[in-house]
């Protein structure tokens, strides 16, 4: 932060700071007015946060894929939301079959594990295929080329899904074991939300173990550091990148199952918005940083949930929740003004 001071500031910096300060003052003022009006009880604030965390957990799982691919290739894989969508469809078809056979009701835990396995393998497969077919030939191309290609892959996958599964919305089968709620302290939590928290936590732990403790994890970190040096040290770069995509796909598939369990709707266009949000989360947390993706996802979820009521309700803006995306992106801009590389991000300029 202080190293900034050594640099000479130009006009743009002052404008950015002015914008940042104005937004910050508006946010603080709005929060102050809302809080002092006493419109919401403490339980309600806690509820906002829990709802936000459940949504944020899903963002976080998707964001991990963005951040891992960025870390290793320096490219933004816009098609990642579509990997998530394919995973949800994978889980949906398995869940349908399990629900019809009655297995879902008699063996809920095993059913969810089967759904996870199906979603993860579908997503991982789609991710690896996309990498092999669309991205690998562009490994040495200028940076913008894979970026635009990724947008193309995203549309390709979306409309492939539309062709396969139709354009309607399908209802994800209800898992009876996850219906209802449990009182936790002063608030009541949905069982499905608790399942999301638990599954997200376990998956994050596994991913962290893979990346930091295993041989393949070391290879991933080596390739992220320097592809050419890693290749000279005997790391199979192509294989490592492929595995990174697969890991990202696995996380996206898991997010798909969580999404299906919590929101119970599946459609071909469903990957787009969560994909954007997860990318935002990855940037917010510091793209390229695993912990940052998780933190960014949770923060984004909570801001979307708490923000409209906290920042806007007090100053009398009607229907604040319609503006939740606006708030989320405002906070993103604000954070990027003061920390251009995200909350936990390294100073990217150093690597340039």
């Amino acid at each position, binding site marked *: 932060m202080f190293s900034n001071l050594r640099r000479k500031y130009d006009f743009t910096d002052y404008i950015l700071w002015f914008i940042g300060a104005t937004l910050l003052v508006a946010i603080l003022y709005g929060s102050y007015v809302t809080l002092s009006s006493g419109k919401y009880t403490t339980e309600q604030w806690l509820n906002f946060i829990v709802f936000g965390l459940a949504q944020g957990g899903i963002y976080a799982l998707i964001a991990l894929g963005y951040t891992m691919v960025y870390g290793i290739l320096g490219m933004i894989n816009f098609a990642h939301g579509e990997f998530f969508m394919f995973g949800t469809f994978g889980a949906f078809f398995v869940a349908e079959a399990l629900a019809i056979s009655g297995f879902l009701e008699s063996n809920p835990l095993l059913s969810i594990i089967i759904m996870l396995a199906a979603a993860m393998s579908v997503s991982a497969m789609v991710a690896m295929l996309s990498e092999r077919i669309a991205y690998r030939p562009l490994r040495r191309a200028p940076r913008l080329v894979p970026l635009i290609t990724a947008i193309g892959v995203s549309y390709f996958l979306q409309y492939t899904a539309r062709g396969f599964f139709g354009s309607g919305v399908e*209802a994800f089968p209800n898992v009876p074991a996850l*219906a209802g709620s449990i009182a936790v302290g002063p608030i009541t939590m949905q069982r499905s939300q608790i399942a999301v928290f638990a599954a997200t936590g376990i998956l994050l732990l596994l991913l962290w173990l893979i990346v930091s403790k295993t041989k393949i994890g070391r290879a991933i970190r080596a390739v992220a550091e320097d592809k050419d040096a890693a290749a000279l040290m005997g790391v199979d770069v192509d294989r490592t990148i492929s595995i990174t995509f697969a890991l990202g796909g696995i996380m996206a598939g898991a997010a798909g199952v969580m999404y299906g369990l919590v929101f119970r*709707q599946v459609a071909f266009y469903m990957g787009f918005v969560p994909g954007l949000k997860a990318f*935002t989360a990855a940037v917010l947390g510091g793209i390229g940083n695993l912990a940052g993706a998780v933190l960014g996802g949770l923060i984004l979820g909570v801001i*979307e949930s*708490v923000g409209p009521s906290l920042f806007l309700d007090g100053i009398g803006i009607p229907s604040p929740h319609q503006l939740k995306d606006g708030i989320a992106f405002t906070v*993103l801009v604000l954070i990027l003004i003061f920390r251009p590389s995200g909350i936990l991000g390294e100073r990217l300029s150093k690597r340039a």
Partner: protein
Amino acid sequence: MRTRTLLLSVLVIIALAFTACAPAPQPAAPAEQATTAPAAEDAAAPAEAPAADAAGCTDPLGCIEIAAGDPIKIAYALVTAGPNSALGEDSVRGIEIAVDDMGGELLGHPVEIVGEDTGCSPEGGQAAATKLASDPSIVAVIGTSCSSEARVGAPILSEAGLSLVSPSNTAPDLTDAAKRVPGYFRTAHNDLVQGAVAADFVYNDLGLTKAATVHDGSLYAVGLTAAFADAFKALGGEIVSEQAVNVGDTDMRPVLTTIAAAGPEMIYYPIFTAEAGFITAQAKEVQGLENTKLMAADGSFSQDFVNAAGEAALGMYLSSPDFSAFGDAYQGFLTKHEEKYGGAPLSAFHAHAYDATNMIAAAITAVAVQDGDNLSIGRQALRDALGATTDFQGLTGNITCDPNGDCADPKIAVYEVTDVNSWNPNVTSPIKVFPK
């Protein structure tokens, strides 16, 4: 270099996000459309005029010439794909049964139905209208399904000289004297009626005085929540919270928590299948709303909505056309529907679509002139004939068009969802509860 790419990516993503989330092209200034309209017409006129002159057509908007043996083409612009497909598919069935009842032909010409999906969005309405407007052989259009489609689609069709009759647009705005486009008619009720019935039910029948409303930014939902709020306040009720969601939102718990803080006794959310489904399913999960009554409207009057909402829909209310007040002919329609498609109608506006088709057929019969071998239909004459529809006996009642294009005989009822696994209005679920 990396920083720059990253910033660029962020800008791209924000741009994408806003195109995705923006509440779509606003019903933007009718004035603007009016000023661009003449230009479009001028461009089209030279191409059409000679043909029209040759046939001796004197209609100011030109004529449609149908050669012997050629079909009379009637188009529909309805939502037949995506989450709201039940709404449009239901109307398409009404049209098909109406054509069957005509014996598949009119004035010795076969009747051909062509159609475009409108997606229940302004963009979809625009695309469908543009495509239909480019086909000069289309006589009239049945559509659109959602009011927001009509807000952008109707002016395009109107400028092309077409007449359109909507079976399910209900927004008051569309037949507002200042905003209605020439050639626009509807057999669906105006939501000023539906909002008043809903308010009457909540205030007088349920005896509730504190309500919250939720709209999704669409013309339909904004208009209907406003109509409900006005009527409810006039009765003495209070609107304690007015909220909005975005089309495509999935997590409604935060907005429901905000509503819970205002302490309403009921929530009125006349929005569409997917979002209404999420609100219904999640409302019971929010503290403070466990016993709050839920009520939606005809935009989510379908099995698809109940599927999306699941068990939580049990006991909620839906306002919709009153099928029990329809004439005896409606029972015959249901029998034909059962034979042709199996099962109960999908949504609320099949009978209105049936009536719209017959209304158009009657108007064509009234104005068509046998011109040598050709059948000649004047576009302006067709519009005038539709507008002059009086005491036309349809399934939905006595259809008479007022000068603003409202032709319905509006009868609204409130239904209660009594079974989430079957859909057959007034037979299994939902069951009419008001007016008694």
